[in-house]
């Protein structure tokens, strides 16, 4: 265990060394923030969630037994924290508009093969901005976090069918955005 390894820093942080915890914070902030931003899609919310995740990690340092890497342990805390933020937004009514938003953007699209990858990225980027919290979180958890729909339903206190429909809508929105781009290409 080298002096600056995660495990060594955790040991020092457990003993009250704030500087050691700050090293862990600086080392893992990008990864933590990335998870939060993917799920929440809002930089300000992602910062809040990242802060909350590090706070929880600090309070639970004595529960870290070193069986998994610190990064893995922190990722789990971060994911759960971000999901809590998603739930809070849902509880605040943000998800209530899901159906209406879904209807507004639910257009079947058949993007052309001729569209460039750069245009695809631009279209998907635009589409991602239009996803509801539920659609975004389900899509990220399924596509990037490789969680099953059953797990996602449990994490989000939802049901499998609702999660399945949310991910269908998310992809349709992306397709629709690409179709729009294709139509605008001369």
């Amino acid at each position, binding site marked *: 265990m080298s002096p600056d390894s995660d495990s060594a820093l955790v040991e020092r942080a457990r003993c*009250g060394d704030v500087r050691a915890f700050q090293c862990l*914070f600086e080392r893992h902030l*990008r990864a933590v923030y990335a998870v939060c931003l993917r799920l929440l899609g809002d930089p300000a919310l992602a910062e809040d969630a990242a802060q909350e995740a590090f706070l929880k990690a600090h309070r639970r340092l004595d529960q870290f037994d070193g069986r998994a890497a610190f990064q893995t342990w922190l990722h789990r805390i971060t994911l759960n924290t971000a999901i809590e933020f998603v739930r809070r937004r849902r509880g605040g009514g943000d998800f209530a508009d899901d159906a209406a938003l879904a209807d507004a953007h639910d257009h079947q699209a*058949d993007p052309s093969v001729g569209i460039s990858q750069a245009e695809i*990225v631009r279209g998907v980027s635009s589409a*991602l901005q239009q996803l509801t919290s539920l659609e975004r979180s389900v899509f990220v958890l*399924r*596509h990037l976090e490789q969680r*099953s729909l059953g797990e996602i339903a449990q994490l989000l206190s939802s049901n499998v069918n609702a999660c*399945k429909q949310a991910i269908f809508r998310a992809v349709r929105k992306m397709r629709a955005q690409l179709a729009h781009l294709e139509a605008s290409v001369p």
Partner: protein
Amino acid sequence: MNQPSDDELLMFHFGEDLGPERMAWIAAAVADDPNTTRRYVELRRLLDASTTLLSATEPGPDAADRIWRQLRPQLAPARRPRPVWFEWLLPGLALAASIGLGIVIGRNWLAPTPTLEETRLTLDANAGDRVLAAHLARHLSQTERLLRVAENGEVGSEQLAATLVEGNRLYAAAATRAGKPALAQFLTELEPVLRELANDDGDNALGGAGVAREQIRSRDLIYRLQALAALQSPTPQRL
């Protein structure tokens, strides 16, 4: 040829279970049907693009400082890790409580099973009582006989009376130690009578057998002695 829907292609891509037959059918369509192949390639490009976008999530330039400034005041000193013995504390207490409970139950609800040592001590204590009771019974019996002889005005028992005086004092002390105050008091009361009989020289004016006889009658010593002797019988009773 029928084609899988977009939703089915998506579930196929994610490996969500659609049933083995349906999954095999979609896999065949992706492999063999050009239109399905094209749709699946497009889906992959779309998902890859989202991966690229979602992975490019750098915090802003001041984000680290901003987050740390807000986080720092909330960092209370972390709890020190518990020592190894602490993890054994709770099971240890539970074990001790179980043992204590077992002892209490054993003492209160189960028939006591004395150990060999306890049995021996009990027998020893009982044996001591029995020896004392036997000697005491003999002493009381001899004393009763002496008192009857004295009450009847017969003479020639001075030697026996002298012997009983010494024994009577010892038995009185033993009765006191054994927690038999009534017996001890009676024997103490009996001692002057026995001494009178032991010192009898035939001159009633100086006391001796005459005085003793008077005390025997007035204090009803023979009857009380019989009663005490009965109480010292095989089933001892506390007086």
